[in-house]
């Protein structure tokens, strides 16, 4: 994986010094809270209901064991012994003291980590496929391009006060595991007919209160024009994105209001101009970065079989493991969704254990997934059973990836000052309701996502089953959505009808599941059955 050179380290160290100075000016009263707010946000520091929350960037979700260990140590030293992995492949801490934050950032910088632009109206942490560099189905490892974009977007002087936040994802396979089309810019690395690698650009996707699927605006951007094209996309947005209403300020509204053709025309015009400005790093820079993402030294000639005689292990392999490109290897996902747990949470001890296991079993590399789980990308199949035993002993062996128990949930009203309703207790109750293994087996792939307000941090629009918490006359109320998907077949869920109370929503999910089990044909997933039948039978069961 990528290693900082002297320049990268200096940039992060400079940022720590800058932020320390900003905190000093805040604590001395030189800056009001109103003035300080945008500054702290660009360093990932939010003021939540009970305390400050600090969000630490995990660029494209990749981290090594030293970094993972530091995340555990920070949870112990500055928080309450927990960290919360997020849908942007980051980690956040919910009980932070303002005066500690410069020291936390300094600790992070010792392991090449930071909280730069994890919040605020700027280009956020760039996300990617959690199986990048390991998946059997990828065209190329997307992470070197994500790293090139990370450096370009870090402290980009023109784009630090955009109309609104800006999220970019980079993938490189047909199977979309990063919700690429639900980003402000989605980039898919592709190979053209001439065999060359380039970037396919999608713009104007997003969730929030107005969910939109990004249209493709450019089929192929050559690698030596990638940054220039991204800069053109951003400049058009910075100049013309709406600033009169923060709910209409995301690029999706601009693309929607202008129309894809007109937005694309403006980008192409800006792009043609910017090509004359010499802003593109040389291809040698991509090669330099790419060298850090070479395959680890996979052993040759390993056997591809697995002893699946232990039924619990077999289930975990079926649910949590993914095909690897190298014979004898496999990618394993650690579920942070135990029954009744808080989705995405891990204790400091669990984080440190994963750090050790990642070093021992996965070439010192781990990934955070947008579904709030952790991946060991490169595990020898011969070691998989030993790894699983150690995970299972630490309550990290839950076999439920992409099932109804693998719930994405935002922090909700338990922590977040924007939320209208709690998300965590609903996730806990649903996972308990469906805890029985036979139930999960029967339901198969069923992605359930919960947001505690319309900002949609819990991706409810993109859940096969989505739940949106709202406030109805002072009472928490939960709307149900069906039919969303964040995968290559991206779609937005539709609301079933009137909402439910906290217990009612759990019953409602069960009724929906029952309709599926009754109507399913052959190997259909829930989503397939819903798409075949439409809303009617589900509505009938819910409200009939």
């Amino acid at each position, binding site marked *: 994986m990528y290693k900082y*050179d002297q320049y990268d380290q200096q940039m992060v160290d400079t940022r720590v010094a800058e932020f320390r100075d900003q905190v000093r000016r805040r604590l001395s009263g030189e800056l009001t809270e109103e003035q300080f707010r945008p500054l702290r946000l660009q360093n990932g520091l939010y003021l939540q209901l009970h305390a400050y929350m600090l969000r630490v960037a995990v660029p494209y979700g990749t981290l090594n064991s030293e970094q993972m260990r530091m995340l555990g140590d920070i949870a112990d030293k500055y928080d309450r012994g927990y960290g919360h992995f997020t849908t942007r492949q980051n980690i956040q801490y919910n009980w932070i003291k303002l005066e500690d934050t410069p020291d936390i950032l300094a600790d992070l910088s010792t392991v090449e980590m930071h909280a730069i632009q994890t919040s605020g109206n700027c280009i956020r942490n760039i996300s990617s496929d959690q199986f990048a560099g390991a998946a059997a189905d990828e065209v190329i490892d997307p992470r070197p391009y994500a790293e090139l974009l990370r450096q370009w977007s870090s402290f980009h002087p023109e784009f630090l006060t955009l109309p609104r936040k800006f999220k970019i994802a980079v993938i490189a396979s047909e199977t979309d595991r990063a919700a690429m089309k639900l980003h402000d810019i989605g980039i898919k690395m592709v190979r053209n007919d001439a065999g060359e690698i380039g970037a396919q650009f999608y713009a104007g996707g997003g969730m929030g209160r107005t969910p939109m699927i990004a249209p493709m605006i450019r089929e192929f951007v050559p690698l030596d024009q990638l940054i220039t094209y991204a800069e053109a996309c951003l*400049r058009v947005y910075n100049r013309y994105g709406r600033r009169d209403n923060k709910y209409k300020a995301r690029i999706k509204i601009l693309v929607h209001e202008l129309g894809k053709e007109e937005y694309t025309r403006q980008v192409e015009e800006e792009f043609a101009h910017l090509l004359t400005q010499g802003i593109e790093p040389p291809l040698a820079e991509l090669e330099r970065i790419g060298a850090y993402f070479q395959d680890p030294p996979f052993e040759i000639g390993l056997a591809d079989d697995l002893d699946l005689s232990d039924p619990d292990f077999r289930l975990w392999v079926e649910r949590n493991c993914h095909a690897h490109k190298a014979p004898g290897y496999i990618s394993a996902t650690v579920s942070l969704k135990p029954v009744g747990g808080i989705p995405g949470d891990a204790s400091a001890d669990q984080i440190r254990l994963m750090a050790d296991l990642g070093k021992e079993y996965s070439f010192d590399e781990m990934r955070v997934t947008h579904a709030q789980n952790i991946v060991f990308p490169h595990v020898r199949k011969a070691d998989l059973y030993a790894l699983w035993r150690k995970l299972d002993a630490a309550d990290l062996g839950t076999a439920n990836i992409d099932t109804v128990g693998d719930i994405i949930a935002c922090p909700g009203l338990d922590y977040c000052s924007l939320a209208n309703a709690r998300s965590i207790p609903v996730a806990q109750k649903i996972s308990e309701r469906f805890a029985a293994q036979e139930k999960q087996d029967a339901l198969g792939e069923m992605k359930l996502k919960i947001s505690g307000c319309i900002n949609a941090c819990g991706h409810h629009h993109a859940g096969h089953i989505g739940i949106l918490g709202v406030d109805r006359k002072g009472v928490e109320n939960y709307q149900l959505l069906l039919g969303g998907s964040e995968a290559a077949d991206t779609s937005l869920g539709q609301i079933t009808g009137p909402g439910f109370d906290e217990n009612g929503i759990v019953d409602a999910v069960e009724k929906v599941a029952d309709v599926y089990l009754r109507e399913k044909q052959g190997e259909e997933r829930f989503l397939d059955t819903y798409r075949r039948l439409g809303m009617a039978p589900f509505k009938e069961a819910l409200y009939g």
Partner: protein
Amino acid sequence: MVEVQFRFREDEAVNDPAVTVDAFAEQTNATAVRIEPGDDARALLPHLDRIALVEVNFPAWTDGRGYSSARVLREAGYAGEIRAVGDVVIDMLSHLKRCGFDAFAPAHPLDPEDAQAAFDRWDNVYQATGDGRKPIWALRHGV
């Protein structure tokens, strides 16, 4: 008129009254123009040879359109003064300078020491923005 607190130019400061972008095309004797966030800086490109001062107004520092306005002008070859006016705060200074601003007239004067620290903050930069600084990728590859 608000005083220019920082200026990075050798030439004599121009203090002609600035007119709006709309008015500038008509007022053929005007030499100073003021860009508001919603203005299109490209409207000035036909008139660059008679502009000696461009003021870019920031009614709120969190509205970043002025950064693009400055770059549009510099990329078109404008070499005169670009002055940031309005809600100009310490934490913008180095970024404004990178986008082509070379004079700063904050509505509320800034602490000189903090401002100097902000201007000097970044020894290196990741992007090429036309301000003459070599980005890190150029240093890495000797280009």
